[in-house]
């Protein structure tokens, strides 16, 4: 049986925040020692202090997680300077093997292979899922995921999100036990007697005609349909916009058509496209930078706009898909990796009402629930783990297997 508890703190002092959060998370375990603790914290926190305090409070537990633009805990979405969310898990039948792979920023393919090797070394009988939290500011996540998928000893769902900071785009952090790294990948292999259900949704609406990337290199998108990528974007932006921080930009992205050509016509937007968002602008070249890689020359894309109403509806559908997989059981816990662009920036102070509570209403208000606001979401689409933006990746674990 899986016992789990969520704790949250918005205290500024990191050690105090950790003590407060873990104190709340341990309470529902009824004295059972946690085997593993998920840790998600905002970037300005003193992470070593957090991890030290958590280790002190839960000495036998492994810790893993990363920094986020904000954290999700219970029904709350906290996008503030100092926020911390933890999920403590005690279970004799479900196992959590955390990893920390350095050098992701410099060589994502090597990181993918290294992680696959470490996963293979675990020799898990029933691998359920591999959660990955790469640095959100460096590294080609697509290369990492592709390499990982090829190197893994078996096919298991890979999901998670890239680590973030507080929209400063300066440095993100990955955690393992008491170690804090940057430019790395934190990962957790979950295996054992349980079931996993996954779902994703983005809620974006393609607009305009299909377009083709005519020049791209190293994450930089130079041309779409033979025209400078930034100028293509500007056609859809109101006013005299000259940087990516303009509010209009956050409503505009690219949809990368990832479906096989033969099946494309039969798929809906969710299954066919992954959303990609530019986070850098080269004004001289009018080129846009898309972190995560994958947008190569020749790919078919569409401009998409975000629709706040559709985001909510789409998220609810996502939760219902998990509910269908629940077979009448309540999830032991749920992990939510949601885009930093779908929180406060879109919904203001009531973001949780749009992106967390509707999901909990479907899956159960009392389900232990934790997550963070990512710089990129990772979840399987069209048969492969893909780097995405403006998306929610939802994962529920059921211990009824």
């Amino acid at each position, binding site marked *: 049986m899986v016992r789990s508890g969520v704790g949250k703190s918005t205290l*500024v002092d990191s050690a105090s925040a950790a003590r407060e959060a873990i104190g709340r998370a341990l309470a529902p375990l009824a004295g059972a020692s946690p085997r593993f603790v998920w840790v998600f914290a905002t970037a300005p926190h003193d992470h070593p202090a957090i991890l030290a305090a958590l280790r002190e409070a839960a000495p036998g537990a492994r810790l893993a997680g990363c920094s986020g633009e904000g954290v999700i805990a219970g029904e709350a979405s906290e996008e503030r*300077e100092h926020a911390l969310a933890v999920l403590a898990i005690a279970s004799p039948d479900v196992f959590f093997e955390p990893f920390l792979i350095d050098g992701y920023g410099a060589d994502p393919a090597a990181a993918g292979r290294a992680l696959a090797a470490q996963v293979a070394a675990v020799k898990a009988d029933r691998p359920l899922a591999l959660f990955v939290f790469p640095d959100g500011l460096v590294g080609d996540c697509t290369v990492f995921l592709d390499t990982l998928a090829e190197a893994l000893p078996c096919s298991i769902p890979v999901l998670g999100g890239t680590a973030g900071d*507080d929209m400063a785009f300066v440095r993100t952090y990955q955690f393992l036990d008491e170690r804090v790294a940057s430019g790395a990948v934190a990962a957790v292999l979950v295996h054992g007697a349980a079931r996993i259900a996954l779902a994703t949704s983005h809620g974006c609406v393609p607009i*305009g005609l299909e377009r083709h990337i005519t020049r791209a290199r190293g994450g930089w998108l130079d041309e779409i349909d033979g025209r400078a990528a930034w100028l293509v974007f500007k056609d859809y932006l109101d006013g005299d916009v000259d940087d990516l921080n303009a509010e*209009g930009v956050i409503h505009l992205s690219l949809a990368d058509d990832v479906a096989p050509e033969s099946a494309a016509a039969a798929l809906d937007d969710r299954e066919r496209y992954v959303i990609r968002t530019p986070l850098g602008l080269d004004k001289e070249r009018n080129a846009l930078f898309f972190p995560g890689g994958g947008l190569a020359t020749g790919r078919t894309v569409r401009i998409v706009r975000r629709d706040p109403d559709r985001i909510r509806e789409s998220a609810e559908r996502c939760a219902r898909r998990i509910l269908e997989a629940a077979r009448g059981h309540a999830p032991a816990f749920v992990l939510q990796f949601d885009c930093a662009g779908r929180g*406060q920036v879109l919904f203001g102070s009531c973001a949780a009402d749009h992106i967390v509570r509707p999901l909990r209403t479907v899956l159960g208000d009392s389900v232990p629930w934790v997550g963070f606001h990512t710089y990129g979401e990772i979840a399987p689409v069209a048969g492969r783990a893909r780097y995405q933006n403006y998306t929610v990746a939802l994962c529920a674990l059921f211990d009824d297997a």
Partner: protein
Amino acid sequence: MPLAELERLRRENATLDEQVKLLVRMEQRFHRARTEHERELARIRTLGDLSLACIGVEDPATILECAVEVMRATFDVDAALAICVGDDERRPNDGAPWVACAPPGAWEASEAGVDAARRAAERAFDASIASPAATGEAGRAAHAALAAALGLEPAALVACMPLASPSGRFRGALVARRGERRAAFHRERLDPKHEPFLMLMRAHLERALESCTLTRDLRERGRELAAANADLAASLEELRRAQELLQSQKLQAIGQLAGGVAHDFNNLLTVILGHAEFARMRIPAGSPARDDVVQVIEAGNRAATITQQLLAFGRKQRLTKEVVDLNELASATGRMLARLIGERIQLKLVFQPDVASAYCDRGQLEQAVLNLVVNARDAMPNGGEIRIVTRAATATDVERCGEEFDPTRYVVLAVEDDGVGMPAEVRAHVFEPFFTTKGLASGAGLGLAMVYGYVKQSQGYVSVESEVGRGSTFTLVLPTERPGEGRVAPRSNPAPAAVGDGSTILVVEDDPTLRMVAVRAIGEAGWTVIEAESADAALTAVEKHGGVVDLLVADVVLPRADGVELANRLRKRWPALPVLLISGYPPERLEARRALAGEHRLLAKPFTCDQLVAEAQALLAEARDAREPGHT
């Protein structure tokens, strides 16, 4: 497909694409406007919250804490610091400014950090700068200087808002900084467009700090006033108690005077009435002289009534206490009073059904009710309603009476009227004897004095409430029956002894005129009389007489040994000797001498010859019954 058709479709697609772009741009404009609107609302709400949070706050630090939190929550700032150097010039702080920082500890909370911020704010204040609206070359230079004073880059100092006191002096500041690394575009950057908001916030803060001073002043003043009020209330209470004591002492003094006068009058009246009786008996019927004597007797009786009331006021009347059912008494008295008060006045009885019984003299209580009702009647020349109320005593009665007693051991009989009421100056004297507002023809001014004296003598309390034009309420608070205080056992009435049955009666009275009346009345009734002016003389006379004395009639107060001592000495010789004590003093005085209770009969002065003879007859008969049981 023909080329023309393809071209048409391409043009249509291009048009649609343009329309889509337009719609997307409009949507962005709408979203931007909505976001700005929401932020504006949030700022207004923030100001409102700030104002609400500052209401009634006495501590400036609390206001500063609210202010820095508002600044940090509203804008994309790393830290906000608020300083208040003092309430204002009227109440300077002791030098240490109040400081608040959000998040706590984010600003260098050291002395140097705070001092630097304070100095910078003072410079901003002197330069009339409220950054970030530091525009113009001079403004930018001043802003840069302020930032340098705080150890910040100019861009990092996003707000330096000096605060002024109402008199325009520097009072403090709110400063905020933002590090270069932050670029949280979803949070609002503080920039010159926010100057109106900052000015509003500044005004709110200045008012809140001033309100803080005023609130503190007000509370302090309130405390002073409360203390002064308490002192005043204590003084008034002391004064009231002193007045009550004075009034009580005054009434007591008047009572003693009245009692003393009444005692002397009683002696005189006994003589006057006695001799008048003798004269009446000697004057034949039909003689004009007999009518004169009758007039003297009647006047004497009226005078005796007055002296009785005086004694009542002086708490010196003889009371026969018993358990009195107030409802029954009021009902019975009410029936009698209905005729007395006339048709224009309604008498209403308001009874508490289960009210406890009082322990008092029933006859005197009836008289008291009569007096009060008559008084109420006279206060209602145009008619109205008189209410006789019975109920249990309450704490309110304790308060109104101005005395300390346990209300659970008392019952109330109140008489209320709708009459003309009394002003305070009348109310203050209403219980004094001979005080009357009715004129000499209407009353002697002894009715309420009797009520007062009676209730006090009954260990009760009296209060009066009255207001001109709104009637009066007289409340008699009477003790309830106490454990061990049962009903007064009715005295058996043996057949009176035959007048002139040969018995010998010893009469001892130091007043020769009174003694003469008593001796003559007893002698004329046929008994043998031995008379003496003192106890010693009485003992001598008894020795000289040599025979049995059947009854001792003695004044209580005699020179040297009093009547009680004489009775005791004679009872050593004749243990069953009946004793009739006569006195102008109240029975309590005798009871204090351990004499009267259950042992001796008392005949109060003034008495008539008939009363004396009747008492003597009764005592002799009782003595005879004791000696000869069954004799009738």
